[in-house]
């Protein structure tokens, strides 16, 4: 039965380790996840590619009209795509903030409601 004790001690340490992990290694993972998500978002929307090519005509239309139409087309595309990008980035940031405060809030409410006992 010696090892049952061992396992119990192990379990208790594991629970105590959990908040520590949440704000250290877990935090790093969360930051990486948000970073990766935003990069994928940029990959999907391609804002920077549109911006880089703002003066490059679309579909190889190198005449003046093509250039003018392309410029405005790209201009509006960049605006809408940037908006979408900001919106989704904000969403990811909110998720990250929730990650940061959720354990604290939970413990606060637990302490609060404990007074009923």
């Amino acid at each position, binding site marked *: 039965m010696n*090892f*049952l004790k*061992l*396992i119990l001690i*192990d*379990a208790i340490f*594991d*629970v105590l380790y*959990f908040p520590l*992990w*949440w704000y250290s*290694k*877990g935090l790093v*993972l969360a930051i990486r996840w948000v970073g990766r998500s935003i990069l*994928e978002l940029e*990959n*999907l929307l*391609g804002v920077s*590619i*549109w911006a*880089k*090519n703002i003066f*490059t*005509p*679309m*579909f*190889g239309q190198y005449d003046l009209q093509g250039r003018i139409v392309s410029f405005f087309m790209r201009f509006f595309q960049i605006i809408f795509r940037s908006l979408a990008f900001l919106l989704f980035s904000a969403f990811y940031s909110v998720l990250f903030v929730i990650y940061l405060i*959720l*354990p604290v809030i*939970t*413990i606060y*409410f*637990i302490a*609060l*409601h*404990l*007074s*009923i*006992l």
Partner: protein
Amino acid sequence: MNLLKDKQRGRAGIFTGDYFLYWGGAMTAKDVPIKKIKRLWNKFIDAALILFGLFGILNLFYQVYLSGARGFFHRSFWLTPNIHLLIFFLALFGLLYFASRITRAAHFFENPLKISAGEKFEIKTALPEELKNYKQIDVARSFSLHSEEALEEAIMLAKKEKSAVLPEYLFLTLLNKPKMKILFGRLGIPIKSIKDRVLRHLSHKEGRGGLDVSVLQILLNTYITAALHKNKKARSNILCLEVVKASAILKEILYDLNINEEKLENVVKWVEIQDKLRARYAEFKQASVFRPRGKMNRAMTAVQTPVLDRFSEDITFFARRGAIDFCIGREESFKNIFRIIESKSRGVVLVGERGVGKSAIIDGVAELMIKEDVPKDFQDKRLIRLSLSEILGGATGEEAGKKLMAVMTDVANSGNIVLDIPNLEYFLSGDGISLAALLAEELNKVRVPVLASTTPEGYKRVVEETALSGIFERVEVPEPDKNLAIQILEAESAQIEYQTGVYFSYDALAAAVNLSDKYLHDRYLPEKAVAIIKEAGLAVKSARGVNSLVNQEDIAKIVSEKSKIPVSALTEGEKEKLLKLEEVIHNRIIGQEEAVDAVSRALRRARAGMESGKRPIANFLFLGPTGVGKTELAKTIAEVYFGNEEAMVRLDMSEYQEKQSVYRMIGKEGESGYLTEAIRKSPYALLLLDELEKAHPDILNLFLQVMEDGRLTDGKGKTIDFTNIILVATSNAGSDFIAREIKAGTKALQIKEMLVDEKLSQYFRPEFLNRFDGVVVFRPLHEDEIVKIAGLLIIKIAKKMETKGIELVVEEKALKELAKLGFDPKFGARPLRRVIAREIEDRLANMLLGGKVKRRDKIIFHSLSDIEIEQGRKI
């Protein structure tokens, strides 16, 4: 053992780089229940957390129900202490804890280390203070559940047997794991038969269930091998491989079951490849989401390319759907291609024979493009494969030129294309070469990266001799060796298995590679082996239905159909062939016991485990007068050994008497010669050199090299492999001497010695004679042997008559008459054929043409002058 006992003070493990690897899993029988209960406990905790989480959510809903839905948004709802919300928040905390637990478990794996293959590691015991500067890695954390369990079961088994845990114990418990069923199923060996053998040889060592050092070493090696293979877990298949590598007994047992280390390693790879194929499929689906789907690039600068589309296909498009082949073992080629492209060269031409995997490499590039794992010039582009046959086919040179220019205009305009031009050798037909110059000009204008491919022949004539040489840099694509070819088949087989519903055994794949390498010479690995397993898969499916196993014999059948070589010759091992050599030969050769004996013994001697691999299978010199069976024996050897008496390259050396004739053999500069080309086409054959003594001495030097090194270099600079031939040279030199000595009753062995020492030295140099595995003396034939030979020849004729429904009987007296007419002391049995043609065949022909015999009649030659025709039944 002491290493382990030092556990209190130090830790046993391996130092590598900045790391110290140690085993932190179960070590003794005491650890096993702890590990087990721990796993159970963890499962229990997870389940409890989930259940409690659900309960908490229910409590939240209940509270909402109690206070009314509107209360949910009131501060008082949350801030008034109550039991339901307390439970909810406790449960939420529990769920957070659960989330952290599974995330931690998923990130347990320590990144594979930088270990170079072939490094040797030794277990050392390290004290805590020694380890301060090292990152310590518990390899047990990277072990899969199955491999961990196998070890624990091995510990318990060893405890029961009152022994230390030896590799064999671990092997036994490993055999119970599901992966092993697949592994040994592929090898076609029931697990039970292996188990029985291992149990019979289970050894003991004092230790009561503690880990033996050898097992500790195995565990650490398993981790290292898994890291080298870039696996994310140390799985049971790799553990199995390492166990076998470490145990001499297991190696012996498996060797008895016809499994050697290489075979096992390839099957372990097979299991891995299939895991990776699955993983690749999933990864692809994810990565391809972000790639543009249509013909447009992401910057939307590209232009529609209608003409180009008509004459090409988009490989990146297929790659996105995973509709291209899995590319194995071509890292070197990728590296070369990208190095050339990054050095701002215009293009790459892959040079290799048809079927060696040039387009598989291009497909691999497309796959890397999908993952954007390519140099900048290739990013955000489409890989377009041009179809030269559609451009050049059915058109005059002028039309084809116009098409080509239109296509290249599209390429130039589009701006997002990497061009792939396979089969440059198509330019060789018609006006092609002038079109190649046109292509070079166009390519110089458009400045897109180009990946072309062609055969060595095509490279020489289309690229080297035209302006294309200024555009392309050459990357060699060699035919993969047999081992790599097997691994490629392991990947290819997955799709065939999926389509046909049959399964391949490892031996089937190995046979496909070995047999096609041996008997199908006009095509190259791996393509020819893939074609064979495809056909075999379909054949087995229609013969035995789905879920059947394709074995070696099924493959041999297909190869036999293609090569016209009997199945038995393919499946029978060399050993069996060698053992019954005399018996088979004597079915065809009458008399010449000493010669047959000498050849058989020499062949066996030359092959009995002493294959240096650098000489022909055997080299023989047959001496004796004409018409005594020298050529016949050579033909027989070809039939027995290579399955077909046509498997023979025959050279009449009397045609090679001048010095210049060396060039006819090996070719002038830039050409291939008759001999080298013949052996390149059929490297598994008998090389018969008639009347060797008549050849020019320079030619003899050529054969001296063949016999010594097993290779020749032709005029093109290609090295031709002669290690799979049997070289037989015949010579009449000294036949008078032989006849004289035989008459005088001298023994064959003595005659041979005298011949080699005295008579032959005027024709051949002694070092040349020494290269032969056997100098075989044929004696003149006796008359009674001629009678038997006549009998053999008659049997052949009788067989022909049988197909016409007529029976032919030639009685003893007639045979003797034939022998007498056909025997000539000078020419041996050679005139016999002519005599039989005159005396028997001519007469039969007359009878047939004259309508004297009908079906079911019987012709009896009592003697050559007394012929009877027995009328057959009338129907």
